[in-house]
C-alpha cells in the first residue's frame, strides 16, 4: 500500500498529461483556445491596427467654412453649407448639452440668413408652434393637435428649405422646426466658438479601414464578423470539440458514466 503511494503521485497537470488520452485532449484544447482567441481578440487587434480616423463628408465641409463663419466673411452659399452640417450634427444622438450648443449655432446662422420680413414671419410661426405644443400637453383631442403641429412643421420646413437650399423631404430639413426657437437661446457666441469644433470632432470622425468599408451581405464587414460570424464560429468550435472527444473516448475505450 505504502509502495503504491510512492510510485504513483497522482499528479494532474494540464500541461504535463500523464496519459496518451490526456495528451491528445490537451492538444485539442490548446488548438481550440488559440483559434478562439485569435478569432475574437486577434480580429479586434487587426481592426485597431488598420484603422484610420476618417472624417465624414459633412466634417470636411464644416472645416472648409468654419473660418469664414467665425470672421463673418462667409458667403451665403457657405452659410447654407454650415447650416446643413449643423443639422447633420443635430440629427445624430448627441447629448443634451451638445444639442443646445448646436441648436444655438443653428438659430444664429438661420436668423442671420433671413431677410427682416422672413424673420418676423418665422418668429410668428414658431410662436404658434410652441403654443400648439403647450396645448398638446393639456388637450384631450391629441390627434387633431398633433395634426395641426405637423402641418405647421411642414409649412416651416417648406419655406426654409427654399431659402437654405435644403431638400424639403430630407430628414435634416425636418429637424428645423424642432431646433429653431423664437426666443434666443442663452448660449454665448464665445461658447459656440469653443465647443462646436469639439462636437464636430467627436461625432464626425470615425475609425475606419477596409474592414469597416467593405460590405458583406449588406453589412459593414467588421460588424457582420463580430455580431454574427463569431457566434457561428463558437458553435462550430463546440460542435467539433464534442465530436473529437467522443471519438477519442471510443478510441481509448474510456467509459463515461
Amino acid at each position, binding site marked *: 500500500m505504502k509502495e503504491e*503511494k510512492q510510485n504513483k*503521485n*497522482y*499528479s*494532474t*497537470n*494540464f500541461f504535463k498529461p*500523464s*496519459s496518451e488520452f*490526456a495528451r491528445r485532449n490537451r492538444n*485539442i*484544447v490548446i488548438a*481550440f483556445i488559440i483559434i*478562439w482567441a485569435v478569432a475574437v*481578440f486577434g480580429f*479586434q487587434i487587426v481592426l485597431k491596427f488598420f*484603422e484610420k480616423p476618417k472624417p*465624414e463628408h459633412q466634417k470636411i465641409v464644416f472645416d472648409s467654412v468654419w473660418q469664414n463663419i467665425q470672421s463673418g466673411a462667409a458667403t451665403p452659399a457657405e452659410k447654407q453649407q454650415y447650416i446643413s452640417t449643423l443639422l447633420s450634427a443635430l*440629427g*445624430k*444622438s*448627441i447629448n443634451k448639452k451638445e444639442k443646445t450648443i448646436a441648436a444655438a449655432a443653428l438659430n444664429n446662422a438661420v436668423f442671420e440668413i433671413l431677410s427682416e420680413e422672413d424673420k418676423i414671419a418665422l418668429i410668428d410661426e414658431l410662436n404658434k408652434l410652441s403654443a400648439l405644443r403647450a396645448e398638446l400637453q393639456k388637450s384631450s383631442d*391629441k390627434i387633431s393637435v*398633433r395634426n395641426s403641429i405637423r402641418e405647421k412643421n411642414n409649412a416651416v420646413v417648406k419655406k426654409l428649405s427654399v431659402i437654405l437650399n435644403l431638400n424639403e*423631404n*430630407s*430628414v435634416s430639413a*425636418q429637424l428645423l422646426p*424642432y431646433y429653431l426657437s423664437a426666443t434666443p437661446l442663452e448660449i454665448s457666441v464665445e461658447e459656440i466658438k469653443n465647443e462646436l469644433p469639439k462636437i464636430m*470632432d*467627436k*461625432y464626425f*470622425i*470615425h*475609425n475606419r479601414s477596409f474592414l*469597416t468599408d467593405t*460590405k*458583406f*451581405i*449588406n*453589412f*459593414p464587414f467588421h*460588424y457582420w464578423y*463580430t*455580431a*454574427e460570424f*463569431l*457566434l*457561428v464560429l*463558437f458553435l462550430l*468550435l*463546440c460542435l467539433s*470539440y*464534442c465530436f473529437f*472527444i*467522443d471519438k477519442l*473516448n471510443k478510441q481509448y475505450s*474510456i467509459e*463515461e*458514466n
Partner: protein
Amino acid sequence: MQKINFKWFNGYLLIILILILLLCSANIYAATLTQLEGSFKTGPALILIAMLIVFIVVGLLNRVKDTANYYAAGRKISKVGSGMAIASNWMSAASFLGMAAMMYGYGYDGLAYVVGWTGGYVLLLILMAGQIRKYGKYTAPDFIGDRYYSQGMRVFGALLTILISFVYCVGQFSGIGLMFKWILGIDYTWSVIIGSIVVLLYTLISGMLGVTKNMQIQYVIIIVAFLIPLFILTYKYDYFWGIPQLGYGKVVSDIVEGKEEAKVVNGEKLTNAYGNDFAITASPEYAMPWAKAAGRTFFQWIAVCFSLMIGTAGLPHVIQRFYVVPKTSDARWSVVWGLFFICLLYWSAPIYSAFGKILSANPEVGTLAKDAIVVYTSQLGKVHPLIVGLLAAGAISAAFSTVSGLLIAGASAFSHDLYVKVINPHATPSNQLLMARVGTIIMAVAVAIVALMELGLIAQLVAIAFSLAGCTIFPLFLLGIWWGRSNKQGAIAGLIVGCLISLISLVYFVAGKSGAILPAHQFITYWLDAWYFAWIGAPLAILANIVVSLMTKEPPLEIKKFLAEQVHGV
C-alpha cells in the same frame, strides 16, 4: 402531511398572484394612441398573467417527487431538450432587453456583450463541463469545499454564490420594473415594488414545485415572443424579411450611410408610429469600432468581452446545470445545443437596436429609456399592440425564470451550505425549508431596494456579477480541475486577490455613483471599472493561487487521487 401543506400553500400563493394581477387590470382605461407609455395596457397584462399561469401549471403537471425520480426524468430529456433548459436558464432580462440597449446606446461597444456572453461557452465546454460532471458534486460551494478540503472555503464559496446571485438579480429586477412600468403605466418605483412581489410569489410557488421540466416550454415562448416582431419590422420597412438576421445588414448600412429620405412603398411613405419619416442622418458612430462619440475605447471593448467570457465559465448557477445531467457526454452535447438556442436570441437582439435607432431618429420621439428599447422599437414600428404585449411578457418571463433560479440558488446556499453545515447542524428538514424561504424573501427585498437606486443599465449591472464570478469562482474551478498541485493555501490567496480587486472596483463604483471622488478616481474607474474588472482580477487571482500553492505543501493524497482517477480517468 407536509406535502398536503405545500399544496395548500401553493394554492394560496397562486390565488394571491392572480388577484394582484387582476387588481391591476381593474383600472382599465383606453390607451392613448401614439403614447409609448404612461397608460395601462390590458392586452399585455392579460398575456402576462396567462403566461405565468401556463408556466406554473406546466410545472405542476411535471412535478417530480424526489431526487431519484428527478434523475429518472432527467434521463428522458433529450440533448436538445436540456439544451433548451440551459438556454432558458441563461436568457434573462440582460439578454432580452439589456443587450439591445447597449448597442442602441454605445454602438459597436455593445457587441462586446454579444460576443462575451456567447464565447464564454467555448471555455466552459472545453475546460470544464465534462470534468465538473465527473467530479459529481451538487453545488459550486460543495465543489470548492471538497476540492480545497476546507469548511471555511465552503462557507466562503456559499457567501460568494449568494453575492453573485444577488448582483445578478439586481439587473433582472430593473428589467422587471421597467416592463411592469410599461404594462401598468405607473412610475418606476411602484413598478419595481409590484414586480418584486409578483416575482417573489412566483419564485415561492415554483420553488415548492421542486425541479420542474417547464424550462423547455419557457424557452420556446421566450424566443417566439422575441422573434415575431422582427419578421414584422423587416417586412414592414421593406428589408429582406425571410431571415431578419441576414436582412438587417441593410438597416445597419442605412444608419452608417444615412437615409435622408423615407422610402415610398406602394405609394405610401414609410413612417414610424408618430408619422415621422423612416429616415436618419448618417451616423457611422453606430457601427464603427470604439467610436469617440460612444465614449468607449479599444481597451474597454476587449476588457468587457474577456470578463464576460470567463465570468460565464464561473457563474455558479450556470456551472450547476452540469451536475444534473446523467451522462458526461450529454453534459457536453447539451452545451452545444444550449449555445445554439442562446445564439438564436443573440443573432437577433442587434436588429432591435438598429431599427430602434432609425425609428427614434426624429426629435418628436424624444429620449427613450435604453433598457426598454426592444419594446419601444416594436411600438414605434407599428407592430400590433398584442404582439408588443407578448414581447413585454416574454421579457418578464425571461427575467422571472432567471430570478427564481437565482433566488433559489442563493437561498439554498444559505440554508444548505451555511445554516445546516455551520450555524445549526441539527436543523430539522422543515426548519431548513423555513430558512430557505426566509432567505428567499430577505434576498428579494434587498435586491428590490438596490434595484430602485438605478445604478446602471441592466447589461452593465449583470456584467458586475460576471466580473465577480470571473475573479473568484472561475480561478478556483480552473485550477481545481486542471492542476492537482493547487492547494487550500493557494486557493485562499487567489480568493483574497480576486476579492480585493473586486472590492476596490466596487467601492470606487459606489462612491462614484454617490458623487464622492476618491484618490486616483479617474485612473481606477477606467482600468478597474465595475463592468470589467475581471480582465485583470482573474489572471492575478490565478497567479496568486499558483505561487502560494507552490510555496506551501501539496494537497492531501486522496484529493489528488480522486482528481486523477475520477475526474481525469487515468
